[in-house]
């Protein structure tokens, strides 16, 4: 229940007021008879509202002065009681933001209505103030820099994190153009974006962050990530910018990249060395070798090649997962890439006695592709097909339709078990079932699919025990080939 403090220099009136209020079921915590006493009791009893006579005969402090002290010191609002309708006094009284006036002599109804309304206002104000305080503390103490700018793009608010990030105090930065916080070449883009938000009445780009280069007071620069939103208060438009210094993240990204490069180098070098030695021995430059020795050497070469391939796969997966792989798409002669892949697997065809057929190989096909990634994707699929196919062979079918080229790799292998087909292109494929040395790292298919998607292509598979497996690639054709729709035969 809310508590009241009643202040009137006339003891009888004070008692009467108290009586009235208690009869109306308000709780009166105390009565005071002078300004000084009112301040003292307000401090001690902490009422929710003080009902106070403007004219306090005793003491040096009148009601308005007392109300001011009570408001400033204890944050307690007042309702004035006054017998005089004197405008000058009323004007002065208004300066302390009273929640109401009661004129003397008062009617009970009027008193009740006035006190109830005042207490209601106390409640409302407290809720508003709490909520504002809550948001203010969130904003002020946020780790992110929060900057508010007006329609002229001048800074009107600046939190602690922003001060730390840019080196200006709130006083120094207020009313300065917000664009001064980023480096010159980036300013136009931000200004355009802010204008666009106003014109399109787009409220926020939250979820969408952009990167730019921040500029500190001391002239130093730093990589910065930010999001922008706009809001309207009574026809005035404001912008909120949330900014984050991403120097550390950039540094970590760089470290990861460096680490992968280092590991790549350290793991591949010895394998490449062993491969080179084996190749030289096989070519006979270190003296003649017996057929039996040759068999051992071929086996060693296979193992080393597999090892090299596995390291490559792991590095590719690591790059894909960190999102640092980019496709460099250009028009390429698709058949030349395909021919290269087939040539590089020639020995596997020969060793297993498998046939190779190419259908639809007629004319030149220009595709929009990333040469290395397309090579890698083809190579991974062909490698797989050759691994699992023991008799028969592989047919490569080319076909152009709807501005894309379709490349099928059809084998005569045992097909892929149904339960495996669903997760064929998943990264964790290898984690399912018993490890099969024949299966390799199990990452080849995942990489092939990722690389195809990255360059605007696709990769899918169909398979049955009777007909073997078919891996279907699609890749966009170059502009000059889009209009022609032929099967390329």
């Amino acid at each position, binding site marked *: 229940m809310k508590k009241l403090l009643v202040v009137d220099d006339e003891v009888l009136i004070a008692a009467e007021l108290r009586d009235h209020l208690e009869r109306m079921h308000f709780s009166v915590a105390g009565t005071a008879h002078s300004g000084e006493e009112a301040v003292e009791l307000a401090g001690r009893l902490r009422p929710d509202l003080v009902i106070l006579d403007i004219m306090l005969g005793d003491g040096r402090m009148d009601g308005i002065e007392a109300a001011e002290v009570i408001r400033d010191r204890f944050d307690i609002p007042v309702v004035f009681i006054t017998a005089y309708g004197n405008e000058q006094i009323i004007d002065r009284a208004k300066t302390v933001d009273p929640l109401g006036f009661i004129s003397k002599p008062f009617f009970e109804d009027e008193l009740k209505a006035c006190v109830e309304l005042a207490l209601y206002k106390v409640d409302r104000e407290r809720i508003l103030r709490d909520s504002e305080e809550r948001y203010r503390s969130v904003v002020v103490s946020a780790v992110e820099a929060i900057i508010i700018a007006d329609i002229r793009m001048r800074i009107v608010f600046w939190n602690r994190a922003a001060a730390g990030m840019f080196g200006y105090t709130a006083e120094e930065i207020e009313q300065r153009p917000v664009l001064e916080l980023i480096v010159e070449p980036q300013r136009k883009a931000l200004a355009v974006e802010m204008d666009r938000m106003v014109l399109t009445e787009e409220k926020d780009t939250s979820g969408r962050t952009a990167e730019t280069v921040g500029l500190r007071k001391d002239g130093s620069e730093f990589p910065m990530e930010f999001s922008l939103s706009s809001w309207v208060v009574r026809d005035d438009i404001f912008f909120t910018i949330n900014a984050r210094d991403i120097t550390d993240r950039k540094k970590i990204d760089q470290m990861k990249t460096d680490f992968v490069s280092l590991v*790549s180098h350290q793991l*591949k070098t010895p394998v*490449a060395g062993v491969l*080179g030695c084996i190749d030289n021995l096989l*070519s006979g*430059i270190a003296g003649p070798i017996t057929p039996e020795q040759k068999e051992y050497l071929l086996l060693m070469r296979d193992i080393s090649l597999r090892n090299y391939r596995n390291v490559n796969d792991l590095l590719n997966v690591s790059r894909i997962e960190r999102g640092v792989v980019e496709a460099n798409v250009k028009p390429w002669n698709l058949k030349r890439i395909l021919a290269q892949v087939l040539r590089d697997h020639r020995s596997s065809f020969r060793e297993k006695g498998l046939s190779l057929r190419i259908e639809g190989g007629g004319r030149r096909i220009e595709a929009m592709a*990333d040469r290395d990634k397309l090579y890698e994707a083809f190579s991974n699929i062909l490698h797989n097909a050759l691994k699992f196919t023991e008799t028969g062979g592989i047919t490569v079918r080319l076909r152009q339709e709807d501005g894309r080229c379709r490349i099928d790799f059809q084998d005569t292998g045992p097909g892929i078990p149904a339960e495996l087909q669903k997760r064929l292109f998943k990264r964790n494929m290898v984690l399912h079932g018993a490890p099969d040395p024949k299966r390799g790292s199990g990452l080849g298919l995942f990489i092939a699919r990722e690389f195809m998607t990255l360059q605007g292509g696709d990769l899918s598979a169909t398979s049955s025990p009777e007909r073997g497996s078919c891996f279907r690639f699609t890749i966009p054709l170059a502009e000059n080939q889009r209009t022609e729709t032929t099967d390329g035969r």
Partner: protein
Amino acid sequence: MEGKNQATILLVEDEPVFRLIYRGVLQNAGYTVIEAPDGQTGWEMIRERKPDLVLLDLILPRMSGHEVLHNIRSDAATRDIPVVIFSVMGQEKDVERSFALGANEHRMKGMESPVKILGLIQEILNKKPAA
């Protein structure tokens, strides 16, 4: 045939095993092979000996392969020497950088057999107008 292969090839490579491998293949084909274990020594030997071709690794002590390549192409006396980069670094950006700096070829160690690299070297040297 014998006389044709009298060209001198400089091998800039810090890994002894690769020096052994390529020395073997190239000497077997009749080339004279000289070797440098780091980029700085390699660059000095290029200026002094003017080899007919440089087989250049990328990750090298004291001076990187790309720096050596840049030096070769910036100096009028060495500008026309063919350079084949061979490295385990085969990322697109590495290859692009090699060609941007003026490499004749960029090949990946391990992916291609030394005999294949030899074929490539022969091709480049045969194309070169006789001195």
